[in-house]
């Protein structure tokens, strides 16, 4: 069974989504993961999209490229304004939020704004979009991204989206009373955060990946408690569903 990085990420992320919950999903991997979860173990999972759609049902072969287009609104139950979509998040209605990012640090802080110093950046990235809002308001945040050393850095150049900030009490001191980053899913591993330090720790490895592979691709120390199990590989049915959803492989790579 072969699969791409995107397929692996989508399957791993989908398994973290429980049924009967509400997920604030972006396009690409988060949406694939959410629709896959709906099709398998979470038929009553509700998808919410930033562009202003609650409860859409995706048509295979017609996945949206942005959350602000008709394909994203297909069979939506409500079509609120964008501000309203985020205010529902701030009020506490959404269980899960997804984030990716150019840089992620051990506290789960995410940078999508600048590489290099903000006043004279080497790269001006596209910016927060809803990421800063999602990480501030959803109950559980899942970071899903490819695992690269230049991405997993000890300190992000710029905190676009606050994770655990500088560790215990950091969010609270900043005024972030609700929600937390809970998991990080990559093509190499599944990680969570140590409750004592709020730093990232290794929970499990992707199939065929060794401990050293992960540590070689991580720019900070990544502790593990005891033996690190391997995650089960994507199932045939999972992959079949994903490939039906995205037959042109726009998002599956």
């Amino acid at each position, binding site marked *: 069974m072969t699969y791409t990085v995107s397929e692996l990420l989508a399957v791993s992320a989908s398994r973290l989504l429980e049924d009967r919950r509400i997920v604030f999903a972006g*396009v*690409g991997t988060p949406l694939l993961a959410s629709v896959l979860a709906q099709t398998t173990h979470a038929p009553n999972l509700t998808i919410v999209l*930033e*562009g*202003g*759609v609650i409860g859409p049902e995706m048509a295979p072969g*017609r996945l949206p*490229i*942005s959350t*602000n*287009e*008709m*394909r994203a*609104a*297909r069979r939506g139950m409500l*079509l*609120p*304004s*964008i*501000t309203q979509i*985020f*205010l529902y*998040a*701030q009020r506490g209605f959404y269980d899960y939020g997804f984030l990716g990012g150019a840089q992620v640090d051990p506290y789960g802080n995410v940078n999508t*704004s600048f590489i290099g110093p*903000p006043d004279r*950046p*080497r*790269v*001006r*990235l*596209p*910016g*927060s*979009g*809803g*990421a*800063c*809002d999602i990480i*501030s*308001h959803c109950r559980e945040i899942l970071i899903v991204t490819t695992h690269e050393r230049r991405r997993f850095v000890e300190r992000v150049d*710029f*905190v*676009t*989206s*606050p994770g655990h*900030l500088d560790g215990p009490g*950091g*969010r609270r*001191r*900043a*005024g*972030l*009373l*609700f929600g937390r980053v809970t998991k990080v899913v990559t093509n190499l591993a599944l990680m969570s955060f140590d409750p004592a330090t709020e730093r990232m720790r290794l929970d499990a490895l992707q199939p065929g990946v060794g401990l050293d592979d992960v540590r070689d691709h991580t720019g900070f120390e990544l502790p593990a408690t005891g033996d690190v199990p391997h995650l089960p590989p994507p199932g045939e049915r999972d992959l079949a569903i994903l490939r039906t959803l995205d037959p042109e492989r*726009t*998002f599956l790579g």
Partner: protein
Amino acid sequence: MSGASFVEARRRVESKDRSRRDKRMPVERAAELVRDGDHIAIGGCLYSRTPWVTLRELLRQRRRDLTLSRNLLCYEGELFMVAGAARGIVTSWAGIGLPWGLSRIVREFVESGRVHFDEWSHLALGLRYRAAAMGIPFLPTLSMLGSDLLARAGARTMICPFTGERLCLVPALFPDVALLHVHRADPFGNAQIDGYPHMDADLAVAAATVIVSAEEIVDPEDLRRHADRTIIPFFAVDAVIEAPYGAYPHECYGLYEADLAHIDAYARGVASGGADAVHRYLDDYVYGPETFDAYLERFGLSRLLERRRAAQELSR
């Protein structure tokens, strides 16, 4: 660049002609309401309901020193940068979409300091428009707390007198002009939007001057029959432009899907050719076609109709 002050913004609403009157005019005249140096808020989102008919005319009239704000800025931002029309953008995100990666033009202009990029979170920018629409100088939020955006953007924090906890305060953003593209409007400027409304209703009330282009101008009686669907009030609106396909090649919910092939061709051209490709695009689609009809003809009727059929199929 950050729009009018709180007191000035109220005075501008008080002193403008808010009467119920026929505001229909050609886009050429409507665009004259915009001045060099204005802060322009753009309705819709990314490639949905972008007011291309009016944006195109502003470029044709060679407006200068504009600041553009939009919740997610699509490649209209690139056109204004390369044309020398924009000195700043206020947005939460600038690009085109997932498959096209970073915007080469945004990088060039922002990294070199030629254009200022004022970044807010998506909600924070929405709340800035909403604060303005509500007639208050700021709104509190938990967004941006703990992030480096907060201080850089010019938000403030306070200790909430009710909870004792820290809050972020985002200042109202009062644009000089809002450009909105809607499904239908009456000659007075009352307007309806089908599907997702994005942030247009707030923009309409936040801005000092509001230019509405509409797929269809209808009799006020038609709107009255479904008055509970009208979300933009005439008293906020200064110009009404009749413009079928006015958002093309971007989408208008239920009426036509975005022309993603066109967007893709543009993006690939710019990825390889940079600003030169944008100049060619400006010649071909902005400066060249003298009228909006001529502009649409560049896409061709059959393409427009095909995008309409695609939309009808999707909204079924």
